[in-house]
């Protein structure tokens, strides 16, 4: 281990000023058989931003996320997360990524045989086994309440919760280790508009309070308008643009035009202008 990498490992967020991306993807390619999902894809995520990732079905949004977290080995390309190579198989590098990222899967992916509280404690037990039981319990309680769940949800099983509550519980587990980097896979899918707006607000609040960088996959135009600092558009196997929404809307790309300037896109933009869903 060289001095420079150890230095980077020590400081996942602080050495990174605005110019150093927290996630850096270069020339990424992903294939399933002869179906090419990504080809020569580049993407930078800056520290402290909420990056919305959009794209039609099958453009590989989830595959991109899985490649970055290390759940899928890309067929080609470089991925650097928090200063470490995401493809690295080394124990230290994996641990560094695992400890500093939180992931919320689509339906929460809670362990169905454990209560919500136990679910949140799993990463704490795994990575910080030296913490006392009572402190761990209190941390779990704190994260559950930060995620906007009532305290009595702690002793409930995932099957006893509604879809929206399961997502919040999944978020609590993702936040368990205070990671600087958070991945959200369609956090508002399947929620009613009120619940979705509340979840957006929660994401924004937590991002500001905990200083998170958020990689947010979504189909939800309202989410994009409400909380995303920048938006990355996946199309034609690449990221065709990364920019603030106002610039993306002007982009001359058929899918982008249809998406943002279709009836739903206009409605979301108007409601944002009217301030119905301010964050």
């Amino acid at each position, binding site marked *: 281990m060289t001095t420079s990498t150890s230095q980077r490992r020590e400081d996942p967020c602080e050495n990174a000023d605005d110019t150093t991306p927290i996630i850096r993807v270069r020339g990424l390619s992903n294939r399933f058989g002869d179906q090419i999902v990504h080809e020569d894809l580049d993407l930078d995520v800056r520290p402290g931003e909420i990056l919305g990732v959009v794209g039609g079905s099958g453009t590989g949004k989830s595959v991109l996320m899985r490649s970055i977290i290390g759940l899928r080995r890309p067929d080609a390309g470089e991925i650097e997360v928090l200063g470490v190579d995401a493809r690295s198989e080394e124990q230290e590098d994996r641990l560094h990524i695992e400890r500093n990222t939180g992931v919320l899967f689509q339906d929460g992916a809670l362990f*169905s*045989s454990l209560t919500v509280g136990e679910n949140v404690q799993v990463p704490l037990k795994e990575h910080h086994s030296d*913490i006392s039981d009572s402190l761990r319990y209190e941390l779990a309680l*704190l994260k559950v*309440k930060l995620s906007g769940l009532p305290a*009595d949800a702690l*002793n409930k099983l995932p099957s006893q919760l509604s879809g929206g509550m399961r997502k919040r519980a999944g978020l609590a587990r993702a936040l368990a280790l*205070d990671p600087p980097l958070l991945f959200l896979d369609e956090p508002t899918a399947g929620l009613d508009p009120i619940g979705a707006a509340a979840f957006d607000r929660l994401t924004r609040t937590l991002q500001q309070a905990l200083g998170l960088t958020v990689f947010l996959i979504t189909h939800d135009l309202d989410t994009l308008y409400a909380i995303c600092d920048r938006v990355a558009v996946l199309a034609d196997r690449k990221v065709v643009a990364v920019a603030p929404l106002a610039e993306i809307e002007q982009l001359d790309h058929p899918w982008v035009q249809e998406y943002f300037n279709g009836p739903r896109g206009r409605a979301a933009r108007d409601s944002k202008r009217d301030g119905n869903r301010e964050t």
Partner: protein
Amino acid sequence: MTAPTSNAPTLDVDHQAGDRLQLRGRWTLEYANAIGHALRDAPKGMKRIDATAVDRLDSVGVLQLLRYARRHGLDDAAFAFREDHHALVAAIEDVADDRPKKRREYGFVAALGRLGFAVQDNWKEIIALVSFLGENLFKMLRMAKEPRRFRAIATVHHMEQVGLDAVPLVALLSYLVGAVIAFLGATILADFGATIFVVELVNVAFLREFGVLLTAILLAGRTASAFTAQIGAMVSREEVDAIRTLGLDPVDLLVIPRILALLIMLPLLTFIAMMSGLLGGMSVGAFSLDIPPQAYLARMHETIHFRHFLVGMSKAPVFALIIGLIGCLEGLQVQGTAQSVGERTTSAVVQTISLVIIIDAIAAIWFMHMDW
């Protein structure tokens, strides 16, 4: 964990103001225990806490500091945090402390309570099984009246899985048990010079009891568990609810084909088990007891009674019904979680094997008294 000392959280009493704590280092999850120690060993009587010089702060640090403040009766004004930490502290202060009580799950009263619930659960299971039997019999009769409800392809599919695929296993194990019985009998009967009676021993044992019992126990482990897991997975993925909303009957669709398949295949498997067992006995006779196969078969012709075969076979449909009913019923009672599927599968196997043996014992006594 050996952490570099420069990063470890420290607290010192401020030199100018004697009642002020000066915090330094990283107050983060990594150092959770160090934080705990530092705060426990902190000097008493502090009025203010200055956290502006901390290197890094996360929710663990804030939580521990707030706990410390609560213990020592300090209010929020006692703290001084860095500008960029204010949002974090505010978010954590917001979630007021109303920790729920953990449920008490030990002690004599709780044990008594669990016993009561267990008895009640068992009683409910019995009622459920009996009513499930009734439901199935009724729906089978209805199927006879309305043959379009009958699922021929599903039934044949299950017949293959339940019956044909189990033939090698049933045949092999029965053959081995047959051989073991022959050996066992021979060692005792040889003392009386009655080795030839091994033929009767193996025949009667296998035709009356072991053929059907072995098959039923094997299928309880192999088929009842499979039924529970298949139907249970469908229940937990709401497929069974979907079947209901489409106007179909889960019993017609899932349960009856399985039970019919068992009712047809278990007697056939029993017959294979009986033959394999006899073959096992014959092999032992030929290879180590000096009873050549011709003599063995001749003895068999003289002594065998067809009623032994009937007694054994008459139990096969009953066992088939038990295995099918319990396997499917447990599957339908699965509730959502992955753990529930496992629990129900175990329960299905245990229940079927116990019931099969209990019913076999009762039947043995009854047949004996009837002199059949």
